[in-house]
């Protein structure tokens, strides 16, 4: 039961960074383990040690835009990036 409890109480997500955020953090992709039930804000705290996401930062989970309060799940791909400038 102890093993099962550990398996369900932590999750692993794949985190990606793009453009100026990738350059600032010096990393493009990393695997992170965090408590089940964590939100995007919680994940960001673990990454950057900061309480708040930088202004205008966009977040996508599994290739769809999500808000900072969105809860991540095991196996999710989470991406942080600055405002988009295509077209």
């Amino acid at each position, binding site marked *: 039961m102890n093993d099962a409890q550990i398996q369900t109480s932590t999750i692993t997500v794949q985190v*990606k960074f*793009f*453009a*100026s955020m990738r*350059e600032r953090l010096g990393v493009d992709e990393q695997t992170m383990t965090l408590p089940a039930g964590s939100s995007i804000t919680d994940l960001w705290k673990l990454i950057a040690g900061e309480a708040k996401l930088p202004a205008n930062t*966009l977040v*996508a989970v599994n*290739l*769809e*835009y999500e808000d900072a309060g969105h809860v991540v799940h095991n196996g999710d791909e989470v*991406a942080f*990036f*600055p*405002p*988009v*400038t*295509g*077209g």
Partner: protein
Amino acid sequence: MYVRVQDQPLDPWEQMRQYRPGDVDDGSFGATAVCVGTMRDFNEGDVISGMTLEHYPGMTEKFLQKIAKEAQDHRDVLDVLIVHRVGELAPGDPIVLVAAWSAHRAAAFEACRYLIEQLKARAPFWKKEVMEAGRARWVERNT
């Protein structure tokens, strides 16, 4: 419906010449509206000599597919096309081509405008500009 992100040079008019609107016979559309975005050699008062366009492989294509489907599901729109460059660009290089086919020009114009506005506001692309003397900066504002 045709959506493509490519690191090869984009020739918008050759692309339009070759494209056959899908499931649409030649006599069924009365109007085609097209918008091409081209790299300029100036921005925010600076001369720009080059650009790198980064994207989010997977999400970018998915997002473009979504807005293409939304535009095409609109009444009277028969087909839409989006092609967007990534990689290294020089001034004058086409960045994006969007097109819409309809029986009527109003619907074609509106679909074309919808695609380019949605793309610019939400599609995960990022421009890094190279200025004279080799300085580089990420574009912050997309107008």
